[in-house]
Structures are given as C-alpha cells and as structure tokens.
C-alpha cells in the first residue's frame, strides 16, 4: 500500500435532512429539520404518563385520572412506544408532574366533597399542643426505660464476665480448675465423654485383667461463694470414685495357731494409721490413690480366691466371704483376708473379734502386691508382635513356642505357671519355718548355757530360702573350740543342715527334729572340746569316738566318748557325753597311788605299778568352774605333775 499512488478520497457528510419525496425528475424534497420547540414537543409526546412511577400511586389515584384524562390517554397510546421508566430522559420531570397531578386531583376531590357538605363538614382544628406530642414523649420515655434496663442487664453480665476473667488471672493459679485439671491429666488417664470428664484408675494399661471398670468422674467444685474468703484446703477440682472403691482396704495375711508361738511376726500396725498428706499433695490425688489401692487389693483377692477354688490341694482351701483359709502345715492356718473399710474411720471388721493386736505378716502382704504387679508386667510383653486387633491371640509366651520349637514338656511348663496363691503359701511356709527355727535355736540357747549356741542370720535371703549359721562353742574357749559350725538352709518344707566338713542332713519342718539334732551336736561338741583342749594342754588322745556303741542307749542320737592321757602317761581322763544322759568323767590313776589296790599274784614286779589302775568317776557337778571345758582344764591341770 505504501508504494501505491495516493488516492484522493473526498468525504462528504451525509444528508442530515430526511428525504421527504423524490420527484419523477429526480428532485429530492427534504423534510425541514425540527426546530427546538418542535423537538421538545416531540420528546414530550413520548412521555408515558399512564405508566405509574410508584405502584401505590396507581391504586390510589387511578380512578380520578382515568376519568379526567381518559381522552388524552387514548390518543397517546397509539403513538408511544413502551419505554422503560429508567431509560426515560425526563424521568424526574415526569414524576414530579405526576405527583403534582395527584395532589391536584386529591385537592379537587376534597374540595368537591367539602363543597357538597353532604358527607363532610369542616371544623376548626383544636389547638392543643400536647395532643400531638404526648405519644412521642411517652414513647421516648418508655424507650429510654427499656434501654436502661437492657443496659443494666448488659452491665451486669459484663461485670460477671470480667469478674470471672479477673479471677482466673489472680495469683491463685493453683486454685484454678484448669490448672488442677492439667495436673490431674499429667498423672491420671482422662477422657471426655459427653459433658463429663471420666478418668481411669484401673491397672488395665499396666497389664491387669481385672474386669472392674475403675472409672472416676472429675467434677468441678462450685459450691463455694467466690466473694467470701476461700478456705486453705479448698480445691476447685474434685473426683468422684465408684462407691465400691471408697474407703481404704488392705490384704491381711496371718498365720494362726492354737499355741501362741509365733505371735511376734509383725508387731506394728502400718496400714490403718491415717495417712498424712504430704505438703503439696492434692486431696484428689490421695483419694484416687486410695481407690486404686482398694482396686488392687480387690484384684489380688479375686485372683487368690479363684486360684483357691481351682487348685486341688490335699487339704482344700476354704474361701469364705472375704477370707481364704489354707493349711500349710498341720495344725497351722494361713488366713488371707480382704479388709475393706468403707467408712472414714470405722473398720468393717469388728475389732473385738481379735483380742490380739496384730498378727499381720506384712512381708507377705507386700509380696502379694509385688507379685500382682509382676503378673501385670508379664501380661505386657516387651516384645509386641504384630497381631490382629480384633481377636485374642492366645498366650503371649505361647506364640514363641512355634518359632523356638518348644517340645511338649516346655509348653506344659509354660502353661502351668505357679499361681499367686501357691506362691504365697510357699512363702508363708518359709516364713513360718524360719521363725520356728529361730525360736527353737533361741529356746535351746537360753535353756542350755553350756555349751553356748550362737546363731548368725544371713542378711541375704530369698523369699523361699534363708540361712543361719549356728556355732556351738564354750564360753571363754571360742578360739580353740570351733569344731561345730552348722549352716542351716531353711527352705519351704525342710531345713538342710550343712556341716563344716560338708555333710548334709535334711530335716523336716518338725520342730523336734531340729531340736534333737542340735542337742546331739551340742553333746558332740563337748567331746570335741576335750580333744581340742588336750592338744592345747599337751595331753595325748588315746581314743576318740563320736558314736559310742556301748553303754546305755540314748533316745536322741548317740553318745560320744574320748580318752586322753597326761603327758607322762600317769593319768588318763575318759569322758562320755550323751545328749540325754549327760556327761560322765572318769579319771584313771596310776597304780602306785592307789592304796587299797588288790594284790595280784601275777603282777609282782614294781614296774607294773607304773601302769594306770582302775577308773574313778569324778563328781562333775561338784567341780569348780563355769563350764565344762573350764572344769576339764582345771582337772587336767590338777593331774599334770608339776615340773
């Protein structure tokens, strides 16, 4: 285009005037343009007065207008197009005109009605100033009053709110419910059910299988007047525990026997002392702990009674109400009872029933608790294998039976685990046997002063085994008379005695057996002591026997005997000591010292007089000396010739 020749285009404005007609000879006749007034008229003609601007006006003054302007409307209807009122250029003019018309019509009507005087008469208006204003003032006053009450209500509400907010921010943070709740939450399991906050105090998460729900409810303590001074021990949070867990409970284990021989097993009352609350411990915490303790005691007791019923013992265990009675040894009764005092102070078990203050076996009670916890822990295996959440998976340890290729014996040993009751009975037996052993030893020690018995209890014990070392010595000669050292291993059913030289004797639980054994050992000790003494004194041991086959038969053990001779062989001392018959000491003199020695025909030579003659018994009880060995030492000293 740029390269092309410039083309001239002349632009002429189109004909502004409308062509009216074209003659045959081509002359166009134009319509002359409208003048200003003509244009106005044209525009005015297009106004649609019939179309109401307001709908309410239509109804009100529709009729008079119809009557008055009926003719005009008919004329206009043909020419005018329906315009949208908003597009109409002179809308406001038209509206004002219309309203003016309406007013005029109304005025006209009123005037015509008034003129008739048939329907309406004009009266002067009474000039009462209050008449118009009264309703307004009344309204004003009433509104003001209403607003005032509303405002008052709002203020009251606001005050209440700000008070509660201020209370939260006060320095009594520890009194705040939410703070308490947070503290509670950090120590106990809580969950929200509906409007309530429920907690769980059972040991289920620790592995317990006890079906008690153990739920408690957390409630807000609101029955206190906030305006008054708040008491020191006030706590905004309170807990409600199930009624069957209220109060305090403990498991009582005791061994009863007709003869009060084990009365000293447990002397102090530990449980029923009112618990002193530590500083900083919340009351709810104490309450929950007490309830948890009750729950645990109940669980223990339920487990024990279940086992008591299931286990087939030789003497069946008796379960009566809250007591389990078992007989570990003949004539001995182990009773385990659940004591639950629901009230604050009152014990549910009447105290006149038991005149003796306390026969608790606290160790066993503690062990029961401990075993229950172990049982719980066993349930929570540390190795959790993938398992279906919907179905039980059997015994956890049994699961390992496959991978570990257990044989039948191992599996059966897994299945018949020892129950709580069996364990506790075994422990009770052990405790009983131990205390009986101690009593036997002590009574022997106090009854028999010579020789002395010393018992040293080992400080390392097991629940089923403890040991005591028994030394039999003579007072003042501990260093030389160390022959008898016994180690008594007290088990559940029997006592194993280990001698110093390694001999092992097994005694049953019967008291008499141990006593007899110790008595025989003591009698042997005396003879051993003489032997030791002879060595120290330089005497010769001629013969020694622990078990003499001659002489009167002892009912307990055997008598032992020793014969020692003095250094130069002139004198000899024979000792025979039996556990029952006691000791008998004989001294053999040289023949030369005996006056009324029967003359023998066969032995004439003087040298035979150097031989020892007949024995004479020493009146042992008349001998001076504190104890047997001392007496013996004196005797030996007396028989030893002075150098």
């Amino acid at each position: 285009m740029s390269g092309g020749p410039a083309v001239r285009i002349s632009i002429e404005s189109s004909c502004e005037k409308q062509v009216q007609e074209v003659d045959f000879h081509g002359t166009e006749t134009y319509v002359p343009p409208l003048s200003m007034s003509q244009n106005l008229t044209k525009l005015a003609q297009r106004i649609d007065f019939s179309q109401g601007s307001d709908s309410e006006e239509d109804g009100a003054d529709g009729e008079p207008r119809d009557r008055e302007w009926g003719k005009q409307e008919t004329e206009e209807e043909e020419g005018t197009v329906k315009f949208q009122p908003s597009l109409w250029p002179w809308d406001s003019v038209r509206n004002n005109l219309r309203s003016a018309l309406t007013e005029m019509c109304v005025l006209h009507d009123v005037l015509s009605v008034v003129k008739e005087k048939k329907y309406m008469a004009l009266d002067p208006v009474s000039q009462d100033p209050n008449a118009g204003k009264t309703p307004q003032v009344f309204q004003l006053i009433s509104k003001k009053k209403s607003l005032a009450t509303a405002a008052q209500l709002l203020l009251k509400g606001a005050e209440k709110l700000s008070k509660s907010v201020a209370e939260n921010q006060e320095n009594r943070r520890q009194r705040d419910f939410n703070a308490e709740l947070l503290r509670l939450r950090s120590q106990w399991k809580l969950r929200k059910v509906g409007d309530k906050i429920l907690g769980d105090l059972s040991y289920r998460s620790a592995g317990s299988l006890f079906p008690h729900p153990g739920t408690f409810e957390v409630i807000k303590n609101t029955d206190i007047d906030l305006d008054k001074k708040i008491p020191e021990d006030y706590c905004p949070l309170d807990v409600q525990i199930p009624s069957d867990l209220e109060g305090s409970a403990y498991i009582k284990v005791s061994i009863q026997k007709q003869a009060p021989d084990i009365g000293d097993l447990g002397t102090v009352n530990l449980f029923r002392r009112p618990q002193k609350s530590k500083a900083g411990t919340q009351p709810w915490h104490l309450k929950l702990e007490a309830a948890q303790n009750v729950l645990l005691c109940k669980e223990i007791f339920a487990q024990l009674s279940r086992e008591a019923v299931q286990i087939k013992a030789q003497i069946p265990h008796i379960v009566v109400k809250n007591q389990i009675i078992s007989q570990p040894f003949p004539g001995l009764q182990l009773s385990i009872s659940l004591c639950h005092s629901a009230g604050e102070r009152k014990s549910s078990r009447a105290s006149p029933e038991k005149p003796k203050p306390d026969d608790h076996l606290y160790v066993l009670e503690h062990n029961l608790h401990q075993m229950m916890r172990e049982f719980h822990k066993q349930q929570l295996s540390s190795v959790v294998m993938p398992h279906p959440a919907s179905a039980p998976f059997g015994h956890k340890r049994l699961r390992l039976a496959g991978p570990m290729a257990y044989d039948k014996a191992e599996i059966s040993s897994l299945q018949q685990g020892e129950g709580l009751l069996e364990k506790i009975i075994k422990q009770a037996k052990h405790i009983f046997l131990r205390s009986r052993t101690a009593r036997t030893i002590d009574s022997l020690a106090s009854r028999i002063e010579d020789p002395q018995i010393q018992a040293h209890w080992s400080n390392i014990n097991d629940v089923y085994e403890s040991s005591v070392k028994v030394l039999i010595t003579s007072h003042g000669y501990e260093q030389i008379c160390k022959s008898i050292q016994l180690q008594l291993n007290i088990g559940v059913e029997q006592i194993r005695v280990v001698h110093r030289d390694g001999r092992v004797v097994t005694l049953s639980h019967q008291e008499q057996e141990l006593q007899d054994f110790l008595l025989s050992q003591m009698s042997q000790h005396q003879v051993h002591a003489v032997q030791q003494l002879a060595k120290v004194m330089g005497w010769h041991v001629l013969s020694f026997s622990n078990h003499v086959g001659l002489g009167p038969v002892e009912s307990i053990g055997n008598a032992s005997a020793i014969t020692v001779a003095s250094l130069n062989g002139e004198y000899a001392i024979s000792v025979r000591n039996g556990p029952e018959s006691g000791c008998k000491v004989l001294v053999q003199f040289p023949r030369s010292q005996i006056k009324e020695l029967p003359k023998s025909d066969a032995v004439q030579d003087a040298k035979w007089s150097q031989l020892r003659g007949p024995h004479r018994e020493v009146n042992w009880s008349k001998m001076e000396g504190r104890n047997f060995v001392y007496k013996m030492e004196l005797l030996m000293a007396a028989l030893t010739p002075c150098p």
Partner: protein
Amino acid sequence: MATQRVLPQSKETLLQNYNKRLKDDIKSIMDNFTEIVKTAKIEDETQVSRPTQAEQDHYEMHVRAANIVRAGESLMKLVSDLKQFLILNDFPSVNDAISQQNQQLRALQDECDKKLTSLRDEIAVDLYELEEEYYSSRYK
C-alpha cells in the same frame, strides 16, 4: 505446630463444632445489639396501642440484652471447653509428663535401693555383733 496431625473424625467434628459455636455466639451478640439499636428508634405509625408497643419494646430489649449476656457466657464456656479439650488431648505433653515422672520415680527407686542396701549392710554388721553379744550373755 507445623506438622498437621491427622485427627480422627469425631475430633474433627468437635473442633468444627467449636468453630461454629464461636461464630454463632458472635453473630448472636452482633444481631441482638443491632436489633436493640433498631428498637430504640422512635416510630410514628404503629398499629398497636402505644403502651402495648412500649411494653413489647421493653420486653424485646430485655430479652435481647439477656441474649447478649448469654452469648458472652457461652463464649466463656467455649474458652473453658477449648482449654479442657487441649488439656485432655494434648498427648505430647502428657507423654512428657509421664516420661519425666518415670525418670523421677526411677531415680527415687535407685536412691531407695542404695539406701536400703547400705542400711542392710550396716544392720547386718551390727546384728552380727549383737547376736554374738546376746548369745554369750546370761540374759537370754
């Protein structure tokens, strides 16, 4: 909390419910206040008689003011509910508390064990001497 934990359905609805309560309460306060202000306007034309109208307005304002107060209280309740929700569902802090307590108790246990062991040893020594003395004395 940058990490968005996946909440179970019920928790989700609960939280939404809290949100809804908050909006409802605030809307209620707003609406009631607007209505009170509207009612305070003096109107000329009423169909009912003026004392009746006054009584009605009075009552309406009363109720609306009470509604505002109620909504405020409800907001306070919402705050406390939210606190409770946080306290009860804040498992990380609970776990912290548990582990801390666990640590404390273990320390206590160790301490007790140590004390008991030393006590046992001391008593064992004393007991040995006492036993020796007792069994060799006259007063048994």
